[in-house]
């Protein structure tokens, strides 16, 4: 019945939406921000810990939201580990373009890992579900406490 929805709800999304690997508050973190989608009530808080060289050692999150937003937060936490803030900002820009258009620049491992979320571009009301965790992450890196998907 829902065959045409498999582009949106790929197995990797259902899996990470159901069993996120990074879905908890970090014991120690140096940056954090909340993201809020006032339209639907989705909320996420992202936690980041940097290593001494300034790279992200670990990212985690607490979320209340749909399968898309939780899976997106989880894949985000996975892909940003080991990267600098500037690398994360660049990746976030490409992810946002992909969520909106379905197309992503580059074929590096990070964007390929996020590519299952590209299907969201066909569902305009759900694009913000995928991008909300990234808004929160960028707010955390920029030292802002809160981000909105608006």
């Amino acid at each position, binding site marked *: *019945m*829902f065959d045409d*929805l498999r582009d*949106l709800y790929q197995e990797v999304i259902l899996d990470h939406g159901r069993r996120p690997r990074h879905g908890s508050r970090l014991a120690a973190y140096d940056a954090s921000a909340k993201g809020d989608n006032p339209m*639907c*009530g989705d*909320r996420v808080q992202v936690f980041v810990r940097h290593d001494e060289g300034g790279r992200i050692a670990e990212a985690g999150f607490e979320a209340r*939201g*749909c*399968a898309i937003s939780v899976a997106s937060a989880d894949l985000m936490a996975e892909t940003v580990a080991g990267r600098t803030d500037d690398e994360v900002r660049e990746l976030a820009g490409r992810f946002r373009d992909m969520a909106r258009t379905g197309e992503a620049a580059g074929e590096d491992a990070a964007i390929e890992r996020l590519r299952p979320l590209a299907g969201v571009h066909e569902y305009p009301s759900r694009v913000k579900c995928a991008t909300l965790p990234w808004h929160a992450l960028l707010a955390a890196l920029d030292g802002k406490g809160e981000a909105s998907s608006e």
Partner: protein
Amino acid sequence: MNVTTRPALLDIAAIRDEFPILRQTIRGKQLVYLDSAASAQKPRAVIAAMVQAMESQYANVHRGLHWMSERTTDAYEGTRDAVARLLNARDRREIVFTRNSTEAINLVAHSFGRSVLRPGQAVLISAMEHHSNLVPWQMLRDAHDIELRVAPVTGAGELDMAGLETLLTDGRVGLVAITHMSNVLGTCTPAERIAALAHAHGARVLFDGSQAIVHRRIDVQALDADFYVFTGHKLYGPTGIGVLWARHELLEAMPPFLGGGDMISSVTWERSTWAEVPHKFEAGTPAIIEAIGLSAAIGFVESIGYDAIAAHEARLTDHALARLSAIEGVHVLGRAQDRGGVVSFTLDRAHAHDVATLLDRQGIAVRAGHHCAEPLMRRFGVDSTARASFGVYTTHEEIDALADTLARVREFFA
């Protein structure tokens, strides 16, 4: 026409023929529109009345001395008569046009709240209010030193009447403002009892009838209400037109809400005097075409009759509750005895947004989210729900389609 004696039977096929949009297909699937509580679809009569007004007689109201303006003024003021009859108001001057229920409540919060209520008094709402009957009172509280009290809701989703009375006993409540039917739980509140309690403790009472007026006959005199608000677009009418009904003496005692044209008697540099009620509350060119559309919507509802509408929707709601409750993992919020055609539910292991997206792919339109009632969501320990809501055009088959599809949604997320 005496609508109350009509038999409680609906020719649903004929009614659906009146709604052109219901023939629409969504991605090849027949549209199943179960989001009428957000906004109802429009019958041909409403569409035609608005088009006809624009094509044949349109001009501004209350101004022109020419034929077109006179005809349009007659039609616009005719809606005031239609609304007065619909609500059984004593006097047509008790009908004030607003943009929607939200604006009507803001009008009361501003004009009654800041002038008739005194600092130190309280406004009492309930825990199942739409944000439109909550936020204006928070703004009044913060600007004018008015306390805001919240009457509790029981686990069944009914108003806790003992709790409500307790909050009235110190006599400081000046206004009780409560929904007549919850947009989330479908619960209808006992308006006559609420009004009697409020009056016994010296308070005025406002009912938010945005949902209730779609499903049942409203008699503001029988309810002994002081204010009653509703919006046109949920009653099969256009957007942009809503109604505040208030007792004439209250409107007389209240200062204007917005200033401008059409609401004045005379204007000099030094001062202005206000037009008579209700015009002093209708500043600026009103929603003329929309008011004409509302009149047609009221005619449509009255031609079917509230008895038939209520009976149809009660059968639909019973059917929906039975079908949804039979699906493992589906939980319906609230189980009020007296309820209308709104059913909110959650599905284990699936977020409401995901449920709504899957239903949408089958052409089934429901709402998902907090339904502009975040505090109520917290009361029931959920972040969001999916909501199916019914109109006069909803069929048993559409509810079956919802239930059958939900069973498949459950398997998808299992």
